[in-house]
């Protein structure tokens, strides 16, 4: 990552080859681009980063209910000793799907929702670097998610669901030990969501590096942008590692390879290493976006700038780096040898340092602030408080000798729910409340919001707090039941009740969405204005909901928190005074002449092709072949589709920004660079576009 406080300027000797105007292809029948921005079709074919962001959010919410329902089944089964709500077989499927769903289909896409929606806005861009690829990322993610979740139903209730746990250790994941299709769904489904994450990370990295508005140097970017950027780098480098692992697993299961076949001499620890080399950066992929969100919310509601901006950025980068050197702390008891254990134990501990810097800087931001405990602020402060608990238990795991007692007990389960639920999820929920008015033009009800926060928080602590005790009392993870005389009954019952309290809290959130929307509609859709919270980032400098073209004109940034500084100045006594209202500063979205990328049929078709290939790999290679045909067809459609559709309303063109296809059926190869690849310099304008077709 490049960290310089200046805009990178290409050196004089740069070899930038000319990237001239794209040749406007003549539309060939189906190859015209879809039109219109109304109705459900416009969502299917949209390439607008904001709509894609919203769809990511909605999909993640849906999967959250699925994963949450699974969690409730776990808790019901464990509520009492010798539980028999669901049997051992179903239980294994349920907790595996719970983990997989929550990690890959809830937290990651929810973070992607914010990344998609906010990154371009925060750097003042019109859209992401490759809008069509962005749409493809979403559909590809959805394909992988639906494939995974469908395993619950196919061939009977949880008969073919993955049942090896989310980290799916070999050789238990091998065909002899797990003969159902479950692990195939796991291997294929996660490869598909992996492609989605990888493509999207490339897209967003390029967006941040390349699409920043005038004056938006790296150290003028909001901390959320930074954290999302670091997250994308982590994804960029971590996804390939799990892809390798999944590949090997898939080869073993589908084509009889020997990678995890112990009888042939394989060492099953290979899987563990590969999984956790991915897996540990992954947990920071889960948390860093929430850290970014918290870093936006707390200053806003403290009425102060973020304390120690540079240190916040640096600590995020440090976490990103250090996250690569600690993976074997998940393997302290695997038998990797005392030296390796010692090294990883020590490296793990020191991750507490940059994380602590973050916690303390948030507290320092609040110090002497004027704290308004709005719903987003409640969530943000909830993160500070709850994440710390999970972080501290994390440090106790890092003490390797002690971890031999803790590992694979509920003490670990407590740890990671505190960091994931108490950190990532609370942060993301706070983000929902905070940016809801930006995305939809009205606020969610504060009363319901606060109530549901407290219900969730209390339920959360009652669910996961007791798990610390259970773990230290010796309750193992992933057991479908326990004996009555082991003494785990009390706290399990408390945890189960707590989980239902969380469910009530979640239901209150959903109700809030429904009720607030209704109320707003009934009231004749009043305008919240661009800046309902008196906030700081560029995203507030345009109308709410954000118009399709984001900003009416290019913003020139001169400092950190540009928008805030345009609203406030300092008088001779160094007191802050309001110099302008948000409405005066912000764009009103009236410029309808901004060129926008045209919608496209192909991203969703490509996603469908991948879905078919996925099912085909699991069930029938002919189906996979059909999927491949569809996939290749979609790629050619993508390449050949006209850059612009002159008939489309709103003078869409895509500025040839997203030409870069990815002619790679395996999903791992390189972009084919065909299509309207030559882009950035395309002097496309209406006149020229009008001559096309």
């Amino acid at each position, binding site marked *: 990552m490049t960290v310089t406080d200046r805009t990178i300027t290409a050196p004089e000797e740069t070899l930038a*080859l000319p*990237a001239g105007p794209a040749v406007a292809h003549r539309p060939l029948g189906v190859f015209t681009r879809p039109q219109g921005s109304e109705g459900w079709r416009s969502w299917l074919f949209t390439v607008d980063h904001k709509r894609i962001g919203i769809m990511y959010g909605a999909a993640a919410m849906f999967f959250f209910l699925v994963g949450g329902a699974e969690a409730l089944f776990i808790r019901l089964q464990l509520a009492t000793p010798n539980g028999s709500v669901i049997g051992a077989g179903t239980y294994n499927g349920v907790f595996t799907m719970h983990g997989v769903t929550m990690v890959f289909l809830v937290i990651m896409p929810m973070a992607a929702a914010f990344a998609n929606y906010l990154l371009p806005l925060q750097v003042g861009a019109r859209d992401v670097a490759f809008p069509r690829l962005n749409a493809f990322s979403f559909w590809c993610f959805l394909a992988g998610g639906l494939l995974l979740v469908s395993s619950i139903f196919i061939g009977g209730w949880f008969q073919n669901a993955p049942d090896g746990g989310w980290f799916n250790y070999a050789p238990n994941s091998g065909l002899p030990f797990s003969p159902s299709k479950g692990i195939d769904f796991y291997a294929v489904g996660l490869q598909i969501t992996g492609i989605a994450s990888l493509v999207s990370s490339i897209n967003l990295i390029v967006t941040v590096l390349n699409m920043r508005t005038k004056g*938006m140097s790296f150290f003028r970017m909001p901390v959320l942008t930074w954290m999302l950027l670091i997250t994308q780098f982590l994804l960029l*480098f971590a996804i390939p590692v799990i892809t390798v692992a999944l590949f090997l697993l898939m080869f073993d299961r589908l084509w009889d390879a020997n990678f995890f076949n112990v009888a042939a001499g394989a060492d099953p620890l290979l899987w563990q290493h*590969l999984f956790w080399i991915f897996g540990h950066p992954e947990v920071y992929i889960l948390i860093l976006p929430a850290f970014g969100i918290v870093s936006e919310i707390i200053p806003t509601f403290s009425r102060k700038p973020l304390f120690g901006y540079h240190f916040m950025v640096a600590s995020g980068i440090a976490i990103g780096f250090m996250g690569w050197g600690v993976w074997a702390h998940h393997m302290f008891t695997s038998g990797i040898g005392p030296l390796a254990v010692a090294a990883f134990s020590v490296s793990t501990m020191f991750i507490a340092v940059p994380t602590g810097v973050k916690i303390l800087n948030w507290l320092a931001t609040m110090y002497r602030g004027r704290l308004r405990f709005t719903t987003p602020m409640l969530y943000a402060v909830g993160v500070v408080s709850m994440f710390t608990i999970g972080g501290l238990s994390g440090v106790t795991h890092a003490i390797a000798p002690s971890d031999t007692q803790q590992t694979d007990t509920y003490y670990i389960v407590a740890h990671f729910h505190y960091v994931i639920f108490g950190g990532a999820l609370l942060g993301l929920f706070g983000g929902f409340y905070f940016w809801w008015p930006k995305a939809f033009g009205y606020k969610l009800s504060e009363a319901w919001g606060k109530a549901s926060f407290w219900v969730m928080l209390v339920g959360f602590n009652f669910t996961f707090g007791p798990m610390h005790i259970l773990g230290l009392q010796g309750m193992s993870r992933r057991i479908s039941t326990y004996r009555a005389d082991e003494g785990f009954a009390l706290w399990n019952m408390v945890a189960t009740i707590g989980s239902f309290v969380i469910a009530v809290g979640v239901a209150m959130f959903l109700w809030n969405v429904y009720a607030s929307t209704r109320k707003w509609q009934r009231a004749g859709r009043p305008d919240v204005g661009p800046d309902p919270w008196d906030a700081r980032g560029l995203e507030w400098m345009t109308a709410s909901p954000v118009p399709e073209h984001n900003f009416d004109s290019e913003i020139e940034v001169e400092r950190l928190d540009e928008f805030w500084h345009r609203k406030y100045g300092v008088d001779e006594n160094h007191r802050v005074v309001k110099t302008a209202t948000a409405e005066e500063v912000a764009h009103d979205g009236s410029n309808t002449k901004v060129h926008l990328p045209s919608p496209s049929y192909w991203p969703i078709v490509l996603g469908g092709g991948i879905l078919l290939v996925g099912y085909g790999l699991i069930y029938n290679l002919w189906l996979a072949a059909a999927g491949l045909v569809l996939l290749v067809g979609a790629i050619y459609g993508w390449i050949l589709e006209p850059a612009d559709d002159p008939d489309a309303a709103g003078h869409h063109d895509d500025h040839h920004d997203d030409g870069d296809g990815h002619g790679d059926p*395996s999903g791992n190869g*390189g972009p*084919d660079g065909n299509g309207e690849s030559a882009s950035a310099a395309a002097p496309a304008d209406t006149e020229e576009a009008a001559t096309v077709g």
Partner: protein
Amino acid sequence: MADEATTHAEEHHTSTGISNEKLAMWVFLGSECLLFGGLISTYMFNKGRIGPNDIGPDDVFDIPFTSVSSFVLLMSSLTMVFAVSAIARGDLRGNRIWLATTAALGATFVAGQVYEFTAFYSEGLGFTTNLFGSAFYALTGFHGAHVTIGIIMLMSLYVMSMRGNLGPERAETVEIIGLYWHFVDIVWIVIFTIVYLFPQ
């Protein structure tokens, strides 16, 4: 980008002055390092985990043959840069010739690999035979798939050029595909050394 509607005719620029596509390709190649790194380490880790009487690297490798096909792939990188510099000079015909040559060299390499695979198979080394077999075919096959995709992309460029859609203004497209091609080549440099030449 948030250009004034009235000024959209001005040139589009990026913060770094680099085109999005080229940046994206380099970012992507950075990520590919971890992909191939994983496969190569898997190979290194597993190649020796076979029985004393099992078929192993020494039993199948035909170094002279593989050296030749490696050389072919290496030289395809040279022809690729020729293609790029031809189009940069505006020499469309030269560009086409070099693109075709590169694709042909690549295809020769892939053909060599197919031959090698069949030869190994007939000597008794299958994908499922032992860990060496699985790891070897997975790694080299994966690389071969990358080369194949590269060939398809080169041929697509060729067709585009024939149809007049690949003028000098799109030299960067050729360059970007060239980057991919060279990357696949350097991966083979590593594979050739580690897989074939390292003393077993």
